[in-house]
């Protein structure tokens, strides 16, 4: 049994309907655990005060914003190479989720920036990269919306995703070159100096897992909806020809 079998919508619908309750349950539990722990049961940071609690949503959402695009890149490639329909529908399904994650990272960052840096927005490289990522999501979704033949749209958006990824990386370097920035470095890195204290790290890990599971749940749900809409299209066509 290979993953290519899920190119068959029937197989995918069966498996996903079996998996969904489990993933959903797990997502709700982890997300609630991580966020409740983080919000109610962690101490304040000595420098940032209570604002450090924002980290439990800011970091996971920032991470998922990037991961969602990476997943779209992979699934788009699979579509272009193997004509795997479910794969590209999953990419389509993931885009609005990734865009929401980008928005959450931007909004929570902006709200955090107000007390920390004294401004809602700064043209810091990481913030700027996220703004650009947001634009990529917007363009990708708009292209899906604008083309009405599904396979044409799939091809065009996949090519865009591919070319866009190259340019997104390029923007990242351009932005770093352009402005050195105020933003935190990676605090979960192995570098001891930057490492966040364990009291903060555990709930952070858990809510990151929660965001991943939430993402999987939503992608499954949305992919099922996309498959249904393809099915509806096919049935309407049959009806018209009959």
């Amino acid at each position, binding site marked *: 049994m290979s993953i290519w079998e899920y190119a068959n919508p029937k197989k995918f619908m069966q498996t996903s309907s079996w998996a969904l309750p489990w993933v959903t349950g797990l997502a709700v539990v982890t997300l609630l655990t991580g966020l409740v722990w983080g*919000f*109610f049961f962690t101490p*304040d940071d000595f420098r940032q*005060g*209570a*604002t450090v*609690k*924002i980290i439990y*949503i*800011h970091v996971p*959402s920032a991470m998922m914003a990037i991961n969602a695009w990476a997943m779209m890149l992979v699934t788009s490639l699979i579509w272009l190479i193997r004509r795997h329909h479910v794969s590209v529908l999953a990419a389509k399904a993931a885009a*609005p*989720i990734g865009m*929401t994650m980008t*928005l*959450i990272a931007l*909004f*929570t960052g902006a*709200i*955090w920036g*107000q*007390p920390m840096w004294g401004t809602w927005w700064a043209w810091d490289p990481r913030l700027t990269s996220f703004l650009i990522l947001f634009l990529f999501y917007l363009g990708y979704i708009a292209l899906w919306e604008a083309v009405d033949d599904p396979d044409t749209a799939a091809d065009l958006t996949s090519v865009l995703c591919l070319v866009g990824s190259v340019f997104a990386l390029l923007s990242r370097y351009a932005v770093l070159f352009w402005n050195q920035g105020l933003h935190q470095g990676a605090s979960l890195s192995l570098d001891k100096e930057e490492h966040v204290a364990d009291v903060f790290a555990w709930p952070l890990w858990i809510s990151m897992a929660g965001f991943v599971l*939430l993402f999987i749940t*939503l992608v499954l*749900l*949305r992919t*099922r*909806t996309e498959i*249904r*809409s393809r*099915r*509806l299209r*096919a*049935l*309407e066509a*049959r*009806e018209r020809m*009959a």
Partner: protein
Amino acid sequence: MVELGKYAGTVLGAYGVTLALLLGLVWMTLRQGAKMRKRLEAQEKRMGRNG
């Protein structure tokens, strides 16, 4: 209740925005899913299960 001090607005605002966006996304996902399922069922009823 946790003590958020002078940053209450900031922290609650951040959590509020996040919850609103996430709930919005989940709600949209579920609503679109339900709508599509209903349309598909109506169509299948009309045509017989396999057209």
